[in-house]
């Protein structure tokens, strides 16, 4: 007689639906990408990655994403701290606004940001008077990436801060430690893994971002051309090999980020013996 494997029903059906849909919608197209990129062989890869325009675009995308992620790390952490630890009028509103970049369509954010930071924009004008060009520069790109990555840091750190027991802090106070020391040595190490995770998330999100950035960047090759846009222009020129190689590099980075995020979670789980 066939040995039953699971107590609850529906294993076969849910496994079938999950794997089938996953394979069809996600894995199949990505496999096509990998296939197309590989079909040009190693030489095509070398040609594409050696192309200065490509390296410039990738450097810009990764670099701006990193800076944005770090800015978000600081700002996001502060926001999470303020939301969890303090009571102030309008707290719920602030909490809701955090999710705005997540809910707002990227193209909408894109045109709003470029208008805001252009030379006669509400923020662009004062910055221009200070001699800082924001729109159509790497700075503008970074600002846009800070915009879209912000909720990831906050929403990753917030639950961890929320669940943090206050007892160790009280113990530290009883032992005579001041607030800053307590924060540095007791609180911050406990939330650091989640902060890192959030920064990684924000970075991963920023690397592939298109809609919010494409308007404010101006897309000058070698200067403000982000990698996703380069991929699009290669597609439009039917340079499928070039587009797919660049795309595969970006995808590989995304996967590495996803893997490190999960590894971080696993490490954190082991650390606290969950």
């Amino acid at each position, binding site marked *: 007689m066939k040995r039953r494997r*699971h*107590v*609850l*029903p*529906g*294993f076969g*059906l*849910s*496994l079938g639906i*999950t*794997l089938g849909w*996953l394979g069809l*919608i*996600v*894995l199949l*197209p*990505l496999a*096509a*990408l990998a*296939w197309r990129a590989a079909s040009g062989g190693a030489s095509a890869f070398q040609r594409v990655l050696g192309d200065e325009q490509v390296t410039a675009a990738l450097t810009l995308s990764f670099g701006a994403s990193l800076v944005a992620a770090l800015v978000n790390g600081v700002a996001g952490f502060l926001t999470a701290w*303020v939301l969890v630890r*303090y009571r*102030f009028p309008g707290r719920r509103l*602030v909490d809701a606004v955090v999710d*705005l970049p997540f809910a*707002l*369509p*990227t*193209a*909408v954010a894109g*045109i*709003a940001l470029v208008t*805001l930071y252009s030379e006669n924009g509400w*923020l662009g004008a004062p910055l221009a008077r200070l001699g800082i060009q924001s729109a159509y520069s790497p700075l503008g790109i970074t*600002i846009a990436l800070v*915009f879209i990555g*912000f909720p990831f840091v906050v929403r990753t750190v917030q639950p961890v801060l929320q669940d943090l027991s*206050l007892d160790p*802090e*009280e113990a530290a*106070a009883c*032992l*005579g430690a*001041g*607030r800053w020391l307590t924060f540095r040595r007791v609180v911050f190490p406990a939330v650091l893994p989640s902060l890192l995770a959030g920064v990684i998330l924000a970075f991963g999100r920023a*690397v*592939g*971002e298109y*809609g919010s950035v494409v308007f404010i960047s101006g897309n000058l090759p070698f200067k403000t051309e982000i990698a*996703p846009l380069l*991929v699009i222009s290669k*597609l439009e020129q*039917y340079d499928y090999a070039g587009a*797919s190689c660049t*795309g595969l590099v970006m*995808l590989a980075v*995304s996967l590495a*980020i*996803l893997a490190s995020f*999960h590894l971080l979670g696993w490490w954190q789980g082991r650390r606290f013996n969950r």
Partner: protein
Amino acid sequence: MAVFTEPALPPTVSLSPRSATSDPPWIRVCLVGAVVVFLGVLFVLPLVLIFQEALRKGWAAYLGAFADEEMHHAIGLTLQVAAIAVPLNTVFGLAAAWLVARFRFTGSRWLAALIELPLWVSPVITGMSFVLLFGSQGLLGDWLAGHGVKVIFALPGLVLGTLFVTFPFVARVLTPQMQALGRAGEEAALTLGAGPWRVFWSVTLPKVKWSLTHGIILCSARAMGEFGAVSVLSGHIRGATNTLPLHIEVLYNEYQFVPAFAAASLLALLAVFTLILKNLTATAAAGANPS
């Protein structure tokens, strides 16, 4: 071992119970102020600007922007794509959440990670992958042309791209909720003789209805706002394959700022509405969890 010396407290000072773990008031004010300014400048300002630019030439021009036929088509197409993609991904999300939350099997962690994969793929890469698969020069291009089926630069392509991009949204919200709620309810129903579908309908679904709603709302908002993937997949054929976000781009690039921001304001309102609904369903979901 360091020894900290604290100044002696005057005997009349009474401390509130939690002062050992709360920060001094001036720090609180500074941090809250900094956060509010940061959020205001970075997030609220652009939102306000959208509406300001949309109404720059007054209400007549604003409303007139919506009378345009291409705008109508763009809105209709956006809704159509969402109406197809969201239910499909909802069914998937339910199946995936059931699988991951209720069963232990080797590779379940890998599966959970794979389900999250679409969140990490750039929308442009997504679009390109489908082009490489279904486009005229793609893997299945010849087969599709032979059967007269148009995927890329047509509705199916838009739907596929949207499906990819919104793939994990429902599953992501449902899975932790189902894990947190535990299996006892379903086990109880089984011991009482209920069949699989009855267990699902009568016990599981009511328990997760708020999370499910939350997930569907997120999925819909994302589906309607998707830009990068559909940009690659649509071919930008005006009046035929332009969703609302794409139409915004077209209008903006033609310097038609008021119509562009008018359309943007519509999506911005949707975003605000999404946030409100999200807030409500999240509180409802938290409230429905028995302690």
